[in-house]
């Protein structure tokens, strides 16, 4: 309530004024009452006495008044804070260790949460994102559509308030030769208007820009805030300048606001141009005319009166009509396929949280991130337990002070409140330090997620959800670690103050602390098991045979989109470029291929002679001669594909081992044939299998290599193939350990055709990218495991050292009576062993239960892996031994004379 807060704030900051007000008001009342009595004939003294009596105790009323004002609570809080600060300063080591533990724990959690927030939870930075839906025909995720479908949807304006389409692309800023890419979008003219995104400078794109015949202002582009600042140095006159994209000139008409990163979570863009200008980049192979090429994401904004259901119903009414216009080459596949296509229902799904980009960033990282979040939560729990134990020990050390305060009239509630205030101060400090750790940590993590081809962008700005998370973590940690010390401390007896100090540390404290340490051992056991499982998973993935040697191989993507070469002349041009590169000094081998491992797939339908019951698609690749040598893939039987396997010679193919063992177990596949596109309009004559090569991993490192076939590029004469073949991959293997200089390769290719656009990427980059998820989880789980272990070690050390200190006189007496040092060490270590053993048993149970949930993230290791459990136990036991040995040695060295003199 506003008035309430205004009054409280005034009471807080204008304290003196408030007190004056109270005084003045009460005095006025008394004076008036005296006046009234005098007027009734009483003498002044009597009137005064009467007035006071009627009023009641002045001081008591004032107190009540202050209570009503809320001033009293503030007074007490202020006093508590002052006391807490003083007592925290009195024990700087304890305070520093506590704040540091909390900062690590809270920092880890906040870092992971801020990534989860921006990847999975945050709403899109557009107007009213709740009314956005995406068009799809699978129930769970977005898919892409062709240009005709988009035109038909957009034409039916009654269906939605507005609709928009876009496609992600990379624009080349260079003018031939080595490429300089920026991420870009082709967007429909309605895109920015439908999203309600306004330009920060100039204007956004409009429907009039998105015309196949060319917009009113010619080709135009809007650029991101970042490109404006970094590429144009924030020039004020950027609007109107020319930007060269894929060799065509675009006029910049506007700069977008900084917060608009696009609609795909995990990446951003720097340039957006109208969809109708796509042919300027793709030339004659434009997707706008290709009915069967899906490349657009289509979204719609619902009218305020529409629900997702009513909009879907309306859309399905128009579905058959829209689909009929876009059958395209599906006509070759028969009536049943067409009917299936026509009936496939359009579906709308809410899109308020944005989209998974084509990198599948969200779906790939959702599970790993939640897992890491749980792991980070365990670290924080361990940290909390550590701090609780520290405070408990400190509270015990402060028994004298606390009992004295009780003896002097402080209530137990007040004592507990003050200790909780101390805890709150600790966790607030810890949270702030943790947020520093988190800002740094989450930025670092995002750079770790990026690979050379995919720069990951996540909007990490602070939003209300992060703030709420921070507050919740602070309060929760305070309660978790502050409750036990507060309750314990408030149970002190005033009589303790009178007793001798120091000798009264009770057994109750020991029991509770031991409980805490067991909990710590349990939790850090779980963390160690998690770390072990994820590190082994990564090791399995990292050491899995790839079937090729990525080191020293560079993949050069050659793009002929800008050369203007006729479709049929492209492959010969690419082959000339390959020959030129083969002549570069230091090049051991070079070969062309349609796809490379971890970048795309190619699965046309086929059948195999001698395998009548197989009908379907198998992944394949089209390669030039020398490809297997360049990749370092062994030939197992027969021969590889060579430079002489060209158009006009007998059609040949090779298959991998997985192919051979699946379709020809026990016999040789050599001499059998493979027929591509059987029965269709594009059917190719059969190819004879002339060799078997080793398995190459093409897609996921987690699944066994799929049966794969290879055919010579130049023998793949499907009629429309040359027209889509505007780029090819050239693999270049170096003679030495360092890759061939891209400068030399680029100049060799430039001599053949300077207009070919080239992109260089080490093959090992793709491999690393494929291992990225496992690597990241392993690194995080590993580091959290180490932090957890350190904290648990610290806890063990703390309680053992404390126990030794408390039993100093007992130990001294025992030694004086003739106990040997070894026996003393044993005494202390047995205690540690009991704690570790109990914690381990609980840890085993907990990790057996928890590991089921991460089974899908593991590879090559079972969730209940015995070796991992054993390893975790050994690590923990060693840490326990070290943590126990230091105080134990100290105990053994106790000098009985000193102790006895003290008592």
């Amino acid at each position: 309530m506003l008035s309430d807060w205004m009054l409280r704030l005034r009471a807080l900051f204008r304290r003196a004024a408030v007190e004056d007000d109270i005084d003045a008001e009460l005095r006025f009342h008394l004076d008036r009452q005296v006046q009234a009595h005098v007027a009734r004939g009483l003498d002044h003294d009597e009137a005064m006495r009467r007035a006071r009596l009627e009023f009641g105790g002045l001081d008591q009323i004032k107190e009540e008044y202050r209570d009503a004002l809320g001033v009293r609570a503030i007074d007490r809080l202020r006093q508590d804070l002052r006391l807490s600060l003083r007592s925290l300063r009195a024990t700087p080591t304890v305070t520093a260790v506590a704040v540091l533990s909390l900062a690590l724990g809270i920092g880890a959690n906040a870092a992971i949460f801020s990534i989860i927030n921006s990847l999975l939870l945050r709403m899109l930075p557009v107007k009213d994102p709740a009314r956005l839906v995406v068009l799809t025909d699978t129930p769970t995720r977005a898919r892409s559509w062709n240009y005709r479908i988009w035109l038909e949807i957009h034409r039916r304006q009654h269906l939605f308030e507005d609709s928009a389409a876009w496609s992600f692309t990379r624009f080349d800023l260079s003018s031939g030769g080595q490429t300089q890419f920026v991420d870009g979008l082709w967007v429909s003219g309605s895109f920015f208007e439908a999203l309600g995104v306004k330009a920060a400078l100039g204007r956004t794109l409009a429907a009039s820009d998105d015309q196949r015949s060319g917009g009113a202002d010619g080709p135009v582009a809007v650029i991101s805030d970042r490109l404006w600042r970094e590429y144009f140095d924030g020039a004020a006159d950027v609007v109107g300048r020319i930007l060269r994209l894929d060799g065509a000139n675009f006029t910049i008409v506007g700069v977008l606001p900084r917060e608009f990163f696009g609609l795909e979570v995990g990446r951003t863009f720097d340039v957006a141009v109208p969809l109708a200008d796509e042919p300027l980049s793709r030339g004659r192979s434009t997707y706008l005319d290709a009915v069967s090429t899906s490349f657009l994401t289509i979204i719609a904004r619902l009218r305020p009166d529409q629900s997702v259901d009513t909009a879907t119903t309306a859309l399905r009414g128009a579905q058959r009509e829209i689909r009929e216009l876009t059958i395209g080459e599906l006509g070759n596949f028969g009536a049943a396929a067409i009917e299936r296509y026509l009936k496939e229902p359009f579906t709308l799904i809410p899109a308020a949280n944005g989209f998974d980009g084509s990198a599948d960033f969200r779906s790939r990282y959702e599970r790993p991130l939640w897992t890491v979040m749980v792991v980070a939560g365990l670290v924080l729990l361990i940290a909390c337990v550590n701090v609780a134990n520290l405070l408990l020990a400190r509270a015990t050390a402060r028994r004298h002070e606390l009992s004295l305060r009780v003896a002097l009239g402080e209530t137990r509630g007040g004592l507990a409140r003050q200790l909780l205030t101390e805890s709150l101060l600790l966790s607030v400090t810890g949270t702030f330090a943790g947020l520093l750790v988190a800002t740094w940590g989450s930025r670092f993590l995002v750079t770790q997620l990026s690979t050379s081809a995919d720069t990951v962008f996540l909007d990490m700005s602070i939003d209300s959800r992060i703030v709420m998370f921070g507050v919740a973590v602070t309060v929760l940690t305070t309660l978790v670690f502050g409750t036990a010390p507060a309750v314990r401390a408030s149970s002190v007896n005033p009589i303790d103050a009178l007793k001798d100090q120091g000798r009264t540390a009770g057994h109750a404290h020991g029991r509770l602390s031991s409980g805490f340490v067991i909990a710590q051992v349990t939790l850090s056991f779980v963390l160690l098991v998690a770390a072990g499982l994820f590190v082994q998973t990564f090791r399995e993935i990292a050491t899995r045979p790839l079937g090729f040697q990525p080191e020293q191989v560079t993949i050069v993507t050659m793009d002929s989109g800008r050369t203007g070469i006729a479709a049929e002349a492209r492959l010969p041009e690419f082959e000339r470029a390959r020959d030129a590169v083969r002549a570069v000094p230091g090049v051991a081998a070079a070969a062309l291929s349609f796809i490379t491992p971890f970048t795309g797939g190619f699965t046309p339908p086929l059948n195999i002679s001698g395998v009548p019951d197989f009908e379907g698609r198998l992944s394949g690749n089209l390669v030039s001669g020398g490809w297997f040598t360049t990749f370092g893939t062994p030939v197992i039987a027969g021969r590889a594909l060579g430079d002489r396997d060209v158009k006009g010679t007998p059609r040949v193919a090779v298959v991998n081992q997985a192919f051979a063992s699946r379709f020809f177990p026990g016999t040789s596949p050599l001499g059998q044939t493979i027929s591509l596109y059987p029965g269709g309009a594009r059917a190719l004559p059969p190819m004879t299998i002339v060799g078997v090569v080793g398995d190459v991993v093409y897609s996921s490192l987690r699944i066994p290599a799929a049966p794969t076939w290879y055919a010579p590029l130049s023998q793949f004469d499907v009629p429309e193939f040359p027209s889509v073949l505007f780029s090819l991959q050239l693999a270049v293997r170096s003679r030495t350990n360092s890759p061939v200089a891209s400068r030399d390769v680029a100049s060799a290719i430039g001599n053949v055709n300077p207009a070919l656009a080239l992109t260089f990427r080490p093959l090992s980059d793709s491999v690393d990218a494929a291992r990225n998820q496992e690597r990241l989880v392993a690194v995080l789980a590993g580091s959290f495991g180490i932090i957890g272990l350190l904290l648990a070690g610290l806890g063990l050390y703390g309680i053992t050292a404390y126990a030794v200190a408390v039993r100093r006189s007992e130990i001294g007496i025992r030694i004086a009576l003739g106990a040997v040092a070894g026996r003393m060490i044993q005494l202390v270590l047995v205690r540690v062993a009991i704690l570790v053993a109990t914690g381990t048993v609980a840890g085993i149970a907990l990790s057996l239960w928890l590991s089921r949930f991460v089974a899908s993230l593991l590879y090559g290791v079972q969730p209940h892996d015995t070796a991992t459990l054993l390893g975790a136990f050994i690590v923990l036991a060693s840490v326990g031994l070290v943590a126990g040995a230091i105080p134990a040695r100290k105990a053994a060295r106790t000098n009985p004379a000193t102790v006895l003199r003290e008592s």
Partner: protein
Amino acid sequence: MPPPRMELPQGTLDLLILKAVALQPQHGWAISERLHQISSASLQIRQGSLYPALHRLERRGWIKARWSTSENNRRAKYYELTRRGRAELETQTTAWHKLAATISQVLETA
């Protein structure tokens, strides 16, 4: 012979204060006088306890206070009803009447 005095039932002081400032802004002393008068001195209210109550009401936003000059030219703190306070007064009055009616009904029939 003065009329017998009654203790104020719990929570009714607020209602009486709201009623007392309903007509025009009043300072604390005037409110206590008014309560004394209109109850024909049959209600026993410790004058001091008026002030914490006034502040509770102010914090709830039912009355607001401002300093002004009193009838004898001294500065005094005046309280007046807010719009929310007026609504509250109506609700509480209705509730009170209903309660009183119900109780007396029970007492007469039982």
